[in-house]
């Protein structure tokens, strides 16, 4: 590194930023100083870039779907795959720019203040945020929400690894409670300009809010599974999300226990609701609607904010699934419960861990007392 960026140099205030770009380009030549002299080749950059790669199919599909839904809404089916994708790409790109510029800007500044290297955590959060907001969200709102989430959700606690709420979920929650008009109802999920002529019988509601009414898009199993329905940018395609899930589970980055128990929890409450005659959606179909799939695969499994213990993960995942469907079934005000379920369980995760660890320790003590030599 140029000495001007080192401590005492004129541009020291850029140290963390320069270091971040340098280590992005090269694996640095730092050697081990203490402890194990050899180390595994794995690092956080590798782990987090794999999360981004896992979410890429959902993002690419989401961009195409933005164009496709727009075409359906104005009754114009002339655009081909690439045309739809391009339309969506141009719509989503500004969201990415805002997400990364604001988020990374704050991240770089905080790292410099703390005197640490820039952590890669925001690479992932910043990639997720545009995927879980409506495509037509005003950019200034997004900027404020990102700033709030990164500063108060993460940096005040000490940065990536120290936060207890997932910054991406916090961004969405902030938008949801601060600007409900832009974040709910039926006006925000399909991209279109006020001047554009809409088709007869047009509705902007997502399948979950539709509640069985007719719409200009299909609402069958395959429509939901493939994802050709309106919704937040990246949440609609279950098949694209499953591709990501396979990669995450294979590499062990995300916990299959959380995903599996989340599905179990959702099915459990879903069947209870079906049995009691609440709601019109069958339990297995609940898994395809709304943000459940995206949330349980990418958001709930964030290793920092999920339960830390293996046993705790089962409880944590189950409760997320159960809470999500509970909100869907019993709360007419919020059509979707995934965000709130994850947020609540993020906050509860340390409690779950505390209980799991306490039980483990008392069991261990019993075992110790029984052990004889």
């Amino acid at each position: 590194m140029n000495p001007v960026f080192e401590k005492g140099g004129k541009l020291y205030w850029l140290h963390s930023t320069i270091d971040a770009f340098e280590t992005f380009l090269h694996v640095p030549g730092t050697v081990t100083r203490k402890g194990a002299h050899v180390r595994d080749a794995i690092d956080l950059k590798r782990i987090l870039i794999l999360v981004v790669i896992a979410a890429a199919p959902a993002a690419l599909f989401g961009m195409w779907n933005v164009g496709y839904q727009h075409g359906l809404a104005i009754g114009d089916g002339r655009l081909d795959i690439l045309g739809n994708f391009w339309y969506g790409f141009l719509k989503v790109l500004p969201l990415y720019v805002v997400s990364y510029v604001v988020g990374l800007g704050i991240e770089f500044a905080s790292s410099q203040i703390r005197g640490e290297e820039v952590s890669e955590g925001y690479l992932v959060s910043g990639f997720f945020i545009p995927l879980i907001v409506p495509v037509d969200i005003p950019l200034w709102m997004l900027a404020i929400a990102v700033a709030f989430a990164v500063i108060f959700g993460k940096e005040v606690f000490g940065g990536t690894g120290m936060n207890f709420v997932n910054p991406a979920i916090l961004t969405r929650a902030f938008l949801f409670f601060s600007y409900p008009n832009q974040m709910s109802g039926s006006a925000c999920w399909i991209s279109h300009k006020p001047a554009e002529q809409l088709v007869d019988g047009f509705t902007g509601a997502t399948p979950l809010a539709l509640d069985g009414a007719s719409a200009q898009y299909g609402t069958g199993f395959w429509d939901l599974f493939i994802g050709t329905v309106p919704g937040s940018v990246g949440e609609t395609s279950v098949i694209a999300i499953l591709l990501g899930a396979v990669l995450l589970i294979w590499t062990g980055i995300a916990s299959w226990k959380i995903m599996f128990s989340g599905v179990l929890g959702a099915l459990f409450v879903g069947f209870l609701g079906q049995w009691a005659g609440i709601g019109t959606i069958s339990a297995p179909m609940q898994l395809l609607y709304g943000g459940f799939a995206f949330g349980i695969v990418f958001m709930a499994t964030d290793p920092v904010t999920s339960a830390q213990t293996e046993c705790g993960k089962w409880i944590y995942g189950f409760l997320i699934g159960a809470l999500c469907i509970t909100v869907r079934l019993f709360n007419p005000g919020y059509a979707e419960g995934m965000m709130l379920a994850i947020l609540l369980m993020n906050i509860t995760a340390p409690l779950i861990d505390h209980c799991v660890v306490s039980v483990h320790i008392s069991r261990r003590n019993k075992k110790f007392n029984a052990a004889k030599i």
Partner: protein
Amino acid sequence: MSNTIVLKKGLDIPIAGAAEPVVSKTALTDIIAIQPSDFKGLTPRLLVKEGDRVLAGSPVLSDKLRPEILVTSPVSGTVQGIVRGEKRKLLAVCIANDHLQTCADSASAPSAGADAQQVKKALLAAGLWPWIVQRPYGVIADPGATPKAIFVSAFSTAPLAPDPVFCFDGSLKYIQAAISALAGLSAGGVHVGLPAGTDSPFARLTGCTLHRFAGKHPAGNVGVQISHICPIRKDETVWTVSLLGLEAIGRFLATGKVDLRRKVAVCGPMAIEPSYVETLPGMQMKEIAGHYGTSAAEIRFISGDALSGRSIGEDGCLGFFDNQITLLREGTEEELLGWIRPLRWKQYSHDHSYFSWLTPWRRYGMDTNLHGGPRAFLMNEGYYQKVLPMDIFPVFLAKACLAGDIEKMEKFGIYEVLPEDLAVCEFIDPSKNNIQDIIAQGIDLMRKEMA
């Protein structure tokens, strides 16, 4: 015979350069060094001055707090120099070897059938007591205490660890003598951990309880074995002795001589013709110049294994308790876009985000590069527990140590571990935390607060 305890968790580090089982050289070096830093829990008091004549087994250092604990010279000769560091901290006592190996009279073996007190006294006088390590904390045992039991691991799973069958070939009688003598010092007797599956010569040991262990590193660590045989509770102490220590103690009991000669494995990716050297503790690295050639500046010299050994440098000396020297390349070069390359064929990772799991037979020329930058803990307990065959939460324990929270450290099992037991967790940590150092600091704090 006892049952085999199968440990499913763990990781063998596939590092290249295992030592061939031949002794390539006998290096009874001209100058040996005794370094107080090798003796954990010893506050050194110097008993010799420059120019003094010493014999093999005559005292060089004693403990300030427990003066009966002595460190004695492994050779006869003259004290050539006393190396001090900052604030006059004693770093090493250098002794010029006269190659006569005359033994001191002060060290004499107890007669056959001696009781525990006599054995203790003889070991203390001969300077062999520091081989007996106390758990918790991994410090030199307190001669006044009676431990719950004494544990010995008869194999090592550490990377490139020397083969005990080769190293202690012909010493079985000494090891047996030591076990028989030490058995009287504890209430619970001596427990020996053997590798499963192989016909280990140590299975013929008598007067002790044998346990068999199957598994990857750190299954050979005595701490891991203790936690499966009989975990250490608060206010309990157990003692551990290495095979090397048993050999030295047994030889002393049988012959009356303090003889610390040992076969040392010179290994690692940078070792030329990795093999064994017969030598004494405190040997200088230049004695093995033939094994590293001319590129010493690019080599890290490690006394011990690649995970838990100590970096000693080209001018350093073999540690008092070590029988392995690992030579690694200093990995100081930058790697363009390294972390994003899909393959990185020459690097090892246990993680499935690389592909080295496809070639489990490969051995890697690992270097000392950190492969990343330090970050906060991000991955969960499960990620680390995969390689730790103990019933503890490694990340919670490390965080308790970082926070200096005594109560939590106790709860999470600080009494059961030494840094070396969590070395594999440190190896695989993607956040590049120095977990062993964190644990060591936690142990230091415990010793200070609980004293």
